[in-house]
């Protein structure tokens, strides 16, 4: 066994362990020098990125990988239930992990200059690394309780990072709101895990999915899990924390927080498609469970889109508008997932057309995860740059910045077009998939989605006009362009956006389609561990 195979074999735990080791070392390293510390963090994350690429190549070519902590076979001899913790990695996991590592690297690059003259930076970098670790852990794990532990790590670290500006009272307020909501959500999830444990005496997702019966307890568990994860991912009725938290934290932090919310979304995907995947078409009920879940998820998604867009129209604070847009974008993803579930349930007797439409919706929704992270992230980075240069975020006190900040203006224009789904950008590719497929499921959904998208364009054109165009405000005469590392980070995101926009098929064929197939194919996920039913 040569060293490359060895690294491939051990890459799943190393992806979590390397940033964790770096986080534990950062307090010691930062005693040397600031530059050394920044380089250390960047290098450690680059190593993680390399491991992600190795693992991704392996999984996409060879199929699902299982890693058992402590060694040995997944199942002890003569048992049907795994005892040790396992990582189970399929294409969906790889898709999310790649998004996370892109977000983390760009955020570290951006914070090099953005956070330069702040204090408390060694703790800041430590906590950022811990947050990245926790997102990786949530995405890689195949064990429910382990998922809960990483969820709690991400709650605590996000809360500490939201409160980074401790001398601003709004950010403390937002952090408190966040930790109250997310810890209650996490406790619901823990209660649900306890119920599942009581029934099936297992904590492994595949084992539970194999044994699940959709009893009364399982319905309670489903409701509790979806509620808890929706609290984490900012779906409509539980979205109150999201605009505050996004708009009052430093821009580099917000960029990773987007990844943390998407990990919550990933969790709910795992719950619906993997744990309850075999029960979606259970015939023991008047309606299929999949249809009911689908209708509820779609309704919540549409509600999120409405709330996000209308609240964004009303605001006059730059960062808050982007934050409400993020709520709307989360709504689009849930709309797509719900459409798939409805399509699946409607297709059953003799209507395969619906299943095809639903599959396209699922692909669009998954593709939108990547695009949303990049688009919203780019807008937040631009907002951070504007704040860095002017110390203002209110629309009323900004104007005419295009004269002094040419590059930032271009990046904002790219982000604007991408977020509202205009043709040359990546947002168009995924939103078009969602529009087309939801039109076949129900035309009303599609029309709502298109109208709200156009209204988003209106929102951002207003922002663009009032911040970057218009007469120069005297107090902003001496504004300078932001430092190079911030420009480099934004340029990197913008390049990825344009690349995906020009060649969407590369991403869809190589990443999104395998991910969608992995989600739909619950049996493979289960039989990798339990060995067939």
């Amino acid at each position, binding site marked *: 066994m040569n060293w490359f195979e060895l690294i491939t074999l*051990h890459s799943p735990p190393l992806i979590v*362990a390397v940033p964790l*080791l770096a986080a*534990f070392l950062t*307090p010691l390293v930062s005693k040397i020098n600031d530059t050394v510390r920044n380089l250390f963090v960047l290098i450690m994350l680059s190593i993680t990125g390399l491991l992600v690429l190795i693992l991704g190549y392996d999984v996409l070519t060879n199929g699902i990988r299982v890693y*058992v*902590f*402590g*060694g040995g076979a997944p199942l002890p001899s003569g048992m049907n239930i795994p005892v040790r913790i396992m990582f189970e990695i399929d294409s969906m996991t790889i898709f999310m992990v790649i998004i996370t590592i892109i977000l983390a690297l760009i955020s570290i690059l951006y914070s090099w200059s953005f956070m330069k003259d702040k204090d408390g930076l060694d703790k800041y970098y430590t906590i950022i690394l811990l947050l990245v670790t926790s997102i990786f852990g949530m995405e890689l794990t195949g064990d429910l309780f382990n998922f809960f532990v990483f969820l709690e790590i991400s709650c605590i670290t996000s809360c500490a990072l939201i409160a980074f500006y401790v001398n601003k009272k709004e950010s403390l307020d937002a952090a408190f709101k966040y930790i109250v909501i997310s810890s209650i959500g996490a406790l619901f999830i823990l209660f649900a895990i306890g119920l599942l444990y009581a029934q099936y005496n297992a904590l492994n997702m595949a084992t539970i999915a194999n044994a699940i019966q959709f009893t009364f307890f399982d319905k309670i568990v489903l409701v509790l899990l979806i509620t808890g994860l929706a609290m984490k991912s900012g779906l409509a009725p539980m979205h109150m924390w999201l605009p505050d938290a996004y708009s009052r934290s430093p821009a580099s932090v917000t960029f990773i927080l987007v990844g943390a919310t998407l990990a919550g979304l990933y969790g709910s995907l795992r719950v619906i498609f993997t744990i309850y995947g075999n029960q979606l078409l259970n015939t023991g009920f008047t309606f299929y469970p999949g249809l009911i879940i689908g209708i509820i998820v779609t309704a919540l998604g549409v509600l999120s889109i409405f709330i996000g867009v209308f609240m964004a129209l009303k605001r006059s604070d730059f960062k808050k508008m982007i934050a409400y847009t993020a709520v709307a974008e989360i709504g689009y993803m849930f709309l797509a997932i719900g459409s798939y579930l409805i399509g699946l349930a409607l297709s059953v007797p003799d209507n395969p057309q619906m299943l095809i439409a639903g599959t396209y919706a699922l692909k669009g929704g998954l593709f939108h995860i990547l695009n949303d992270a990049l688009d919203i992230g780019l807008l937040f980075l631009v907002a951070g740059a504007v704040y860095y240069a002017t110390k203002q975020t209110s629309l009323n006190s900004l104007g005419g910045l295009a004269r002094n900040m040419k590059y930032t203006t271009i990046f904002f224009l790219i982000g604007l077009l991408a977020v509202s789904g205009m043709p040359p950008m990546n947002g168009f590719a995924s939103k078009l998939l969602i529009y087309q497929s939801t039109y076949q499921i129900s035309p009303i959904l599609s029309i709502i989605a298109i109208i709200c998208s156009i209204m988003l364009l209106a929102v951002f054109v207003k922002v663009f006009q009032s911040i970057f165009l218009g007469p120069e405000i005297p107090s902003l005469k001496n504004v300078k362009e932001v430092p190079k590392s911030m420009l480099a980070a934004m340029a990197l995101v913008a390049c990825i956006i344009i690349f995906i926009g020009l060649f969407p098929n590369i991403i869809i064929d190589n990443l999104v389609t395998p991910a969608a197939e992995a989600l739909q194919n619950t049996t493979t996920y289960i039989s990798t561990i339990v060995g067939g039913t």
Partner: protein
Amino acid sequence: MSQMSKIVRTQSNIIFPFIMIFGLYVIAHGHLTPGGGFQGGAVVASGCIMLLVAYSSAWVLEKIKVSRLSVFESLGALGFIGVAFFGLIFGGWFFNNFLVRNGILFNVVPETGSTLSNFNTAGVLPLMNFAVGVKVIAGLFVIVLVMGYASSLKEWKQ
């Protein structure tokens, strides 16, 4: 928070060694009796916190720096993850219990059934208990120390 009265300080001086010994016992015998790194660490940390309450946080901060305690915590965490990495290097898997049958220390496997306590068992578990114990002592103590010091500053300001 000012210092408490002389009676309280003397009492806590007397009780403190016993709490320490009990906590260290719980940490060391984690693999044989109820308890372990977390529980024992919490006991020791509460002993330290008792001193903090009796002698005020400003007095404690003169003796020991927050940054030094924080380094201790990092070291504990590094020890824990280091044992896990050693499992990867020597045992072939992350978190492998590589000492249990053929290690140098803690390598005895007890007979199945009721046994007397044999300290030299359980592989890497005592090491992990120790690392977690150091971490929990430093961590809990730092949390209370920082919060107590901050609140005493505010009192002083008013």
